[in-house]
């Protein structure tokens, strides 16, 4: 199964112009950002709140908007973008549609990195330590995964390597939480395994945004080389692409994006699987073009899921990963079903 030889080639007239796709998805993200700001636990006169913020008055409405809803909406967008673009990039690199940060253990390892830093007070000493811990975990898992399965390896090898990394990282996360000096820590594994945007604050947004943006830039920059790679390794080399550099760039980019995302919201699964899968036919199966639109799609899906956890009448609110899993698991099953013919 490679993207160079898709089973179902969509008919050309079904493929929208790339620009239109980007604009359409951007509009969707903006609408969802607005909805995310409008929805919450208290009814808020949004226009009045915005007026208060602009006139510099710190009314209660302005505080709810700026300190609680804005960070939640922004983080939802940024984290979703990171997960979507990383899923698309990893799938291009490993040439395997199942390569998703959650399934193959990168998110789990990032959670372990962040947990080790957070619960033992390092994040209190140096705020940047939290995303750096997540990035270190994500990078270690990605390198390990690549060493274990390699690019173009069988789906079975990739998934088994992912299962191994995932369960090991999960166990280590639980161990770290057990060893934490705070008695509340033990019960917090749910957050790290399923993720949530509840009660996150603005300082976290500014903390992780630069690191994520650096990751996005590295991933988008690798687009042309990813397109070249679909023609086969030798052809890509003859076209002048440095494959060693490409691998490093993609692994570093995915680690930066996923690691810093997981460090502040926990591991939100399936976003990087569903979104590239849905959008791939719309960009004519070109992995380079898939990157940016998958980022936008990931942002839209994560924002929509976070709106759902607040709109659903279930309290305390669901973890975000529960909703994305309910949406995403059928896609995973259908992919596995189609891959069952593979040797």
């Amino acid at each position: 199964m490679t993207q160079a030889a898709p089973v179902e080639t969509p008919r050309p007239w079904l493929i929208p112009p790339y620009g239109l796709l980007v604009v359409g998805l951007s509009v969707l993200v903006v609408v969802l950002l607005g909805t995310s700001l409008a929805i919450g636990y208290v009814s808020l006169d949004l226009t009045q709140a915005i007026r208060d913020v602009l006139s510099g008055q710190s009314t209660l409405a302005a505080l709810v908007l700026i300190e609680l809803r804005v960070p939640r909406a922004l983080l939802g967008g940024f984290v979703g973008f990171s997960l979507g673009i990383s899923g698309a990039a990893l799938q291009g690199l490993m040439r395997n549609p199942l390569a998703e940060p959650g399934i193959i253990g990168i998110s789990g390892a990032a959670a372990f990195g962040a947990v080790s830093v957070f619960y033992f007070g390092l994040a209190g000493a140096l705020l940047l330590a939290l995303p750096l811990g997540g990035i270190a975990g994500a990078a270690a898992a990605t390198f390990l995964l690549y060493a274990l399965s390699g690019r173009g390896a069988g789906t079975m090898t990739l998934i088994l390597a992912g299962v191994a990394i995932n369960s090991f990282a999960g166990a280590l996360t639980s161990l770290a939480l057990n060893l934490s000096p705070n008695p509340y820590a033990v019960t917090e594994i749910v957050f790290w395994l399923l993720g949530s945007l509840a009660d996150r604050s603005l300082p976290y947004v500014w903390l992780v945004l630069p690191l994520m943006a650096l990751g996005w830039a590295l991933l988008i920059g690798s687009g042309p080389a990813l397109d070249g790679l679909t023609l086969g390794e030798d052809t890509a080399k003859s076209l002048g692409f440095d494959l060693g550099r490409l691998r490093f760039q993609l692994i570093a980019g995915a680690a930066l994006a996923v690691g810093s995302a997981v460090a502040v919201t926990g591991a939100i699964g399936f976003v990087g699987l569903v979104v590239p899968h849905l959008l791939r036919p719309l960009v004519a199966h070109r992995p380079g073009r898939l990157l940016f639109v998958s980022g936008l799609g990931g942002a839209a899906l994560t924002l929509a899921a976070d709106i759902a956890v607040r709109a659903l009448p279930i309290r305390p609110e669901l973890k975000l990963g529960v909703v994305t899993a309910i949406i995403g698991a059928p896609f995973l099953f259908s992919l596995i079903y189609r891959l069952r013919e593979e040797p």
Partner: protein
Amino acid sequence: MANSDWRSSRTVRCRRLILAAAALLLAAPHVRAADAPAKPQRIVSLNLCSDELVLRLADPHNIASVTWLSRDPKNSNVAELAARIPVNHGLAEEIIPLKPDLVIAGVYTARTAVAMLKRVGIPVAEIGVPMSLDDVRRQIREVAVLVRERDKGEAIIAQMDAGLASLPPASRSARPRAIVLNPNGVTVGKGTLVDEIMRRAGIANVAAELAIDNYGQIPLETVVANAVDVLILSASRDGPPALATEILRHPVLTALADRTRLVVLPGRLWNCGGPAVVEAIERLRRVADEVRGEAPAR
């Protein structure tokens, strides 16, 4: 077939009889111990709240073990007393070798250990969560009777009541509005000891108005939007990090500071039924008076 079935069922019945007889024989000494008026001499406590009552009431040499939580002065009012007593972590394996003649446990904690201890015939008393000051008095009395220190119990209750009586009556007119915020965003509503403590301190509990019974989660948005005068954080904000306590450090709470007074009232003063509740009322009373002083128009 039928014959052998009958025989095996008879063997089973015989075995059951023997077991029952053995159980009776084994249980007998415990029954006698429980009936005798002798003071328990190897008391074990399995709960932070019962620890405090046992440590305050019983003689230290009669206490075999209390929980490890009681040694932490941040969580316990009697950490100094606990420092000299061996600690347990609520595990049956730790408790049984101590051969306790009285185990005092909470109704919600260390349930597996409690079930095991009961099974091996160790006398276990369980104390509930006090929902009012009357419950606190009742609980002190109950534990005092169990450890055969009735007089000490009455003395503690008398001291508590004297402390309560010395407080001037709370102002009914201008009661500051407050919300209690525990780790994990949990607040405390109607029908609780915390609610009564707030009432006696002359503070209106907004969570009770929001129809939150007992303990329930409250979104930060609701906390902010309710424009309370006082926000009572029930845990210190500088402990070891956890997401549960991270919520108490959320920047929106700091941003509220110019209209809402942030008060840290440690859980050890008012989560358990003990004489410390008087200090909780006193501290909140002072806060209420100060808030009223700042805003006399309200």
